[in-house]
């Protein structure tokens, strides 16, 4: 699909020289109400979450429910095995007790919680994917060196080429270009 439409655009890329400049620009783009856009920097910039208006990640919910599932699985498994399917009385202790089942359930809570986080992270990021339009862009490569980029996708409902270009220029970018799909 990358070969077929050379005139099809993925988005508008704006380059910045300093973290401060890209942060100010990010705040402006957020104010303008764009949804499908991202900031690319060579290192983490503190306060960028707030500038971009990013909310807390939803991965935590995957982790929570993964953990809950793990805990229930552990308790049910041990109840089924020791309390129902294959009963052996040891040392006069009850056949099932949440106390001795707890360590295993606890381990499963952690394991399933970790699985939940991993699966949640992958699915929310739409990973794995083999290619991204930005990867063949020459200007974008400088993001791993000393430049800062903002890319607004053409699929954003607020996107219109001239207006968006004007906005990016107004927010202090010296270099703006169209990224091909």
């Amino acid at each position, binding site marked *: 699909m990358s070969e077929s439409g050379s005139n099809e655009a993925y988005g508008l890329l704006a380059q910045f020289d300093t973290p401060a400049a890209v942060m100010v620009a990010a*705040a*402006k783009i957020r*104010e303008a109400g764009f949804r499908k856009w991202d900031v690319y920097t060579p290192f983490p910039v*503190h*306060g960028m979450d*707030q*500038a971009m208006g990013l909310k*807390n990640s939803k991965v*935590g919910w995957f982790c*929570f429910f993964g953990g809950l599932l793990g805990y229930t699985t552990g308790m049910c498994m041990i109840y089924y095995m020791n309390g129902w399917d294959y009963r052996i009385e040891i*040392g*006069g*202790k009850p056949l099932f007790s949440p*106390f*001795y089942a*707890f*360590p295993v359930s606890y381990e499963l809570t952690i394991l399933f919680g970790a699985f939940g986080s991993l699966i949640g992270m992958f699915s929310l990021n739409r990973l794995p994917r083999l290619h991204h339009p930005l990867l063949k862009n020459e200007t974008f490569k400088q993001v791993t060196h000393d430049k800062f980029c903002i890319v607004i996708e053409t699929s954003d409902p607020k996107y219109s080429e001239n207006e968006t270009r004007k906005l990016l220029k*107004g*927010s*202090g970018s010296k270099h703006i270009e169209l990224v091909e799909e």
Partner: protein
Amino acid sequence: MNSDKSKKSPGKAVKELFALPELGSKFLIIGGGILLLIGTVTGVENREQLAFSWLLSYMFFLSICMGSLFLIIITHLFDAAWAVPFRRINESIISLFPIMGLLFIPIALLALFFDTPHFYEWMQMGDSPDPALHAKQGWLNKPFFILRACVYFAVWSWLGLGFRKWSIRQDKDGSPECTHKMRKLAYAGIYIFAFTLTAAVIDWVKALEHSWYSTMYGVVYFAGSVWVTLAATYLIALFLDRSGPLKPVMGNRQYHGIAILMLAFTVFYAYVHFSQYFLIWNANIPEETFWYVKREIGSWWDIGILIVFGHFFFPFLMLLRIDIKLALPIMVPLCAWNMLMHYIDLTFNIMPVLHDSGYVLHWLDIASFAVIGGILAYYFMKRFSEAAPFPIKDPRLGEAVAETLHEREHQAQTAAAATDGGAE
């Protein structure tokens, strides 16, 4: 930063701010003191209750002192800049160790010289044929008990006053040498802290039932102590932030950090206490199980369940979310709840020795709590207003405040951008 201004005017402001709480603490001391006097003169029955009540309240406030010492040590060890703004609160608390030493005297007197058969039973037994006690007599004997108490208070006071001294000296010139001195104290302090806390809680609480064994006991008290200290620090810092003295330096980062630690210690406490219970449950040896069997009688059973759900599940689920850690309408009651839970936890440890059929709330419990709490609150406010409300020249302060300032600037910026939306 203008040190002259920020040093003098907040000092006065803090004193004015503390006028009412100070009056309150005096009322507590006088009111509680009168009740305690009645308790001491009205007979043997009350005298034993007084000993246990005093010990319970004492261990509660000792928790906050020890927890504060730990927070100071650990933030120096990890060079945690975020914790600098509210450090003076904990520094003022750990300067109270000499007073804690004085407040220990009633415990020692009641145990050694009065007829209190359940209060440290081993003291009444002498050279007994009980093999469990006989083997422990090298540790559990009266002279060594007193000597150890003296050593604990000497060492804790040395650490507490040392941290405070160097921190306040740094207010003058901001010399990095003071930071280095505090770090060195922290290096030694972390070991001293671990050993003395473990030994002290074994001496004063666990030895109430001398024949019991548990290798987790010191850690359980430690976990609960830091937990309750974080709740207390959150509340005190919030009060001082809202009323002025800490306003320039406290930000979301600080509250969030304290709440993160609170969540960690909620889990840690449950982890160690469960480990203690689980090993005893699993091994099923009478020398160990009697301790928990005793605590399943009457309403002690309900208290135990309350600790499982109120000390762990409820705060754990509440503190999980990021936004709740900063939501004051939830955090303030939760901190108060945590302090209540720690008190209940200590009650569960101490009181079944005296009231073996169930929980009894005695008026001497309240009186002891009022007197010890009042005295410590009074001296805390005195110490806190003696110096600047935060370490004004700590080299790490700038880093901690920068984040807060940036946050506030960003809020102001977005507010401004929302109103005019103009370009540069």
